């Protein structure tokens, strides 16, 4: 019974996570500029990675392996936004102009 539930969680996690990673990759190609492509990369970093790791946790042979996989989720949770910010800030500081309309005051690069 428990094994069946764990198998279902594993299937849903791995297939769902894979689907989100594919959507993220599609967005990386489809979206217009570097800033909007970061949103697509964000999908891969969050739902894609989380669902896959949760699926792997359900399939892990013992609880210590599951804890280690959970620590990877925590690591991604803290490092991925930091690196995305570093990338976005570097692009902005380097003078890459975002595609699309400007909100008031946001276009002045002072």
């Amino acid at each position, binding site marked *: 019974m428990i094994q069946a539930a764990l198998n279902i969680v594993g299937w849903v996690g791995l297939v769902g996570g894979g689907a*989100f990673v594919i*959507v*993220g990759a*599609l*967005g990386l190609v*489809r*979206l*217009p*500029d570097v*800033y*909007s492509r*970061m*949103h*697509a990369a*964000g*999908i891969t970093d*969050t*739902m894609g990675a989380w669902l896959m790791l949760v699926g792997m946790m359900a399939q892990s042979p013992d609880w*210590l392996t599951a*804890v*280690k996989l959970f*620590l990877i989720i925590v690591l991604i*949770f*803290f490092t*991925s*936004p*930091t690196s*995305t*910010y570093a990338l*976005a*800030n570097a*692009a*902005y*500081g380097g003078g890459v102009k*975002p*595609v*699309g*309309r*400007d*909100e008031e*005051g*946001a*276009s002045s690069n002072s």
Partner: protein
Amino acid sequence: MGHVISMGAALFATWLLLSGHFTGLLIGFGVASCLVVLVIARRMDVIDREAQPVHMTPRTCGYWVWLVKEIVLANIDVAKRIITPGLPIEPHLIRVKATQRDELGKVIYANSITLTPGTVTVDIDGEEFLVHALSQEAADDLATGEMDRRVTALEGEG
């Protein structure tokens, strides 16, 4: 002192979970190595309320649950926009106010914005964040200021 205890507990829990050894001698080695790290960190003066935010810990669990829910909803929204040709994608920059008192609160808020697909923090300018939003809905969602209020509440009175 509370910060030292909390860091020691975190170090030892990590050691125990990553090693998986539960026998006397090896646990002794684990404790010893954690103590060495604590002494070094103490001498480097890096154990403070920023490294060990124990004043926030009781409230973080509720915030994380809320944040994960927001991230899941935003993920589904952005994924729909990518795979449906008709849905509007209108990237633009907005400015949002951050009401957090110290830098740690601002970092939590900025990282929460970035972690949510559809909004990325591009620049921090004192009390104001420059945020890149993928759609009008994502920008409006952020402009309500609910996330800002929750992170400020996380800081508490201390």
